[in-house]
């Protein structure tokens, strides 16, 4: 500090600092800047400007050197990233390359990352469901983790708030386990998805197939046009960045919105080394930033700091923020920072064929990916030999049979004829996992990355509950498929490593008690009141829903609280 003159401190001082520009950081930026706070958003990767920096967005398959496929060299250099379904020739520039950003896998963990402005919001699968009280009450009812300090009523208005701005398509399905939201029109199920829905309705009381709720503008409203976004054009090339702003991303939505207020300073190429804790004031005073290009270290100051670096890196930043008050990481009085880390169990899928409804096929593309089956196990009460349950995706498409056995003119005409075959149906499980102390993140004590940051050690694994739940998913789905008349049922017990679900959660969990949690009900560090965490790291439990919508709602709610507290001066004591 002594080497800085007053002017440069002023220049480096903001009202709020947001670490990370992904789905939750973008929301924090929007909320702070709209409320008039001068806000610095720090992003460790490069800038990606909406429309401008989507180099592949309008390419045809034949314009890619390898027609979309990965080369052997890229696969070998990226054994982790190349496992992700979206890491292909058209979008691999939005993924972290394994070699550049190493980490230590104490147990196999596929850490999929997007280091750029917008983060993984450019790449996400865009599925958005609300949590219900069956989810928030889960840990207390079923005796795991700690009780959530919030309930559905606390977050419901913020879900509405986030949904209206982001644009979420869906039906009001009237299901207690999956509360309805403020929706744009849903993408309807197709003939066979409807058939499966009807079959479940007829044969099972509490099992439903609904139109998947997703962050696509099926019918944009004025608020979306005001963001410069337009109707989703069913391209399903979302991972390239959308020229229509048809799906929600920080790049297309929250960041340009924040920019328009004149209150946003976005600084790409900025790794947050640590949050600076001021021992005298008893709060955080700012952040220490490493410029990724020059490796120069700069300090930035603000009255409130939001950590939205994505779950694992948020843990890293806090663990690396050491002071005499917090020798084992900022806010870590409980010693639980980095622990009770969890994810979603995506390790099974089922495929089958259906030879009914052959009078129909589909035309165009469904951006919602089809159907969603909300959790039906252990909802009202415990009824199986495992805790909690799973949601599932369900979709159907009409196959085309191309006979490639021939040669010459016969082969040519067979290839373009596209004879329709049976319908193919598929489902994948999305299981809740139980956060445990033995699933943790910690800093490596010797190894550092190219910028001098300690490498993360990840120790996360499935457990017996996950195995039982997977077995149940396979059994139940096989039965439901059979009842619906699906044939040739194939179970793919994929056994993928944790991480590939890209739903990493926890490590900085919310809770009532500072002895057993890091954050209070406002996502505020119990022990350092002007630091908030509203990305996946804050999650006390995982439930089954895709988590991003909950991060958006929690973020907007926490910013609202933080700004009110700031105005009262309460954050600064």
């Amino acid at each position, binding site marked *: 500090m002594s080497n800085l003159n007053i002017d440069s401190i002023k220049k480096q001082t903001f009202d709020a600092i947001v670490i990370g520009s992904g789905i939750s950081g973008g929301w924090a930026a929007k909320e702070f800047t709209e409320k008039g706070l001068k806000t610095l958003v720090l992003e460790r990767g490069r800038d990606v400007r909406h429309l401008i920096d989507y180099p592949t967005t*309008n390419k*045809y*398959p*034949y314009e890619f*050197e*390898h*027609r979309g*496929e*990965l*080369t*052997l*060299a890229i696969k070998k250099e990226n054994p982790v990233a190349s496992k992700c379904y979206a890491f292909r020739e058209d979008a691999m520039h939005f993924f972290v390359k394994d070699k550049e950003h190493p980490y230590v896998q104490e147990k196999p963990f596929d850490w999929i990352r997007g280091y750029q402005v917008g983060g993984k919001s450019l790449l996400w699968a865009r599925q958005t469901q609300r949590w219900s009280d069956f989810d928030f009450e889960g840990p207390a009812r079923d005796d795991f983790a700690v009780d959530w300090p919030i309930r559905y009523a606390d977050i419901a208005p913020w879900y509405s708030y986030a949904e209206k701005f982001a644009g979420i398509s869906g039906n009001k399905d009237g299901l207690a386990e999956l509360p309805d939201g403020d929706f744009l029109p849903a*993408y*309807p*199920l*197709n*003939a066979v*998805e*409807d058939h499966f829905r009807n079959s479940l309705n007829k044969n099972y009381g509490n099992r439903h197939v609904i139109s998947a709720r997703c962050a696509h503008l099926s019918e944009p409203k004025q608020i979306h046009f005001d963001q410069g976004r337009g109707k989703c*054009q*069913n*391209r399903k*090339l979302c991972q390239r960045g959308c020229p229509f702003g048809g799906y929600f991303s920080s790049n297309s939505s929250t960041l340009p919105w924040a920019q328009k207020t004149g209150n946003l300073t976005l600084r790409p190429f900025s790794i947050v080394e640590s949050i600076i804790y001021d021992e005298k004031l008893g709060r955080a005073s700012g952040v220490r930033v490493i410029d990724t290009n020059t490796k120069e270290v700069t300090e930035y100051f603000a009255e409130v700091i939001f950590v939205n670096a994505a779950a694992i890196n948020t843990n890293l930043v806090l663990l690396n923020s050491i002071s005499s008050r917090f020798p084992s990481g900022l806010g870590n009085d409980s010693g639980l920072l980095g622990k009770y880390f969890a994810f979603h169990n995506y390790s099974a899928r089922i495929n089958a064929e259906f030879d009914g409804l*052959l*009078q*129909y*096929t*589909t*035309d*165009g*593309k*469904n*951006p919602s990916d089809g159907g969603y089956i909300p959790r039906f196990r252990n909802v009202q009460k415990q009824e199986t030999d495992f805790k909690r349950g799973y949601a599932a995706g369900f979709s159907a498409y009409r196959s085309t049979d191309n006979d*490639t056995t*021939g*040669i*010459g*003119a016969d*082969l*040519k005409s067979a*290839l*373009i004829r*596209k004879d*329709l075959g049976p319908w193919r149906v598929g489902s994948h499980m999305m299981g809740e996992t139980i956060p445990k102390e033995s699933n943790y993140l910690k800093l490596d004590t010797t190894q550092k990355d190219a910028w001098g940051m300690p490498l993360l050690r990840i120790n996360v694994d499935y457990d017996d509950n996950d195995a039982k739940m997977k077995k149940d998913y396979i059994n139940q789905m096989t039965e439901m498929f059979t009842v619906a008349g699906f044939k040739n049922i194939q179970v793919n017990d994929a056994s993928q490593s944790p991480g590939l679900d890209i739903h990493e959660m926890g490590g900085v969990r919310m809770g009532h008690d500072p002895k057993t949690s890091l954050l209070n009900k406002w996502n505020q560090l119990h022990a350092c009141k002007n630091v908030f965490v509203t990305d996946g790291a804050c999650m006390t439990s995982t439930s089954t829903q895709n988590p991003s919508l909950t991060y958006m709602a929690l973020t907007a709610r926490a910013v609202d609280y933080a700004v009110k507290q700031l105005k009262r001066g309460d954050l600064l004591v």
Partner: protein
Amino acid sequence: MERRLAIKQILIAAGGLVLLPSCLKHEGKSSILLSRIDVSATQEKILAEIAEVIIPKTDTPGAKDLNLHLYVLKMLDDCYEKEEQDKFFIGLGYFKDLDQQEIKALVIAANSEKDDVPKDLYPFYNLMKQRTISGYMNSKYVMSNLVIWELVPGRYNGYFPVKTA
């Protein structure tokens, strides 16, 4: 065959290439830049003939028109293990010194898995056929004219009626 090769070299020279004496011992190289495999102009020409047998020119363009053999080479170069590349060249070796009719006969025999086709020709042939087909289906011509690939569909109908003949 040697005469044909000589003629070809003359043509290359006439096309502007300077053939140094030492180069006369070597055949010309592939027309595209390849990094992990070594392909001669002759091999490239054979591959073009084979691809044309698989996807011939009819009233629509064929493999040669669409340069499908160059796509196969590009994929072989970048996307396959060395073992698979080696097997590819072993199989390709069976086409050496064959004329156009002989090439066609061997491809047709391989495609119908005739008994007298050597077993180690298949790793080559299967890759060649599969990649020729994928190159064809992903070609601008097919995607623009025969099986239309839409960049901006702008619609979804989950109950689209199937046309009945």
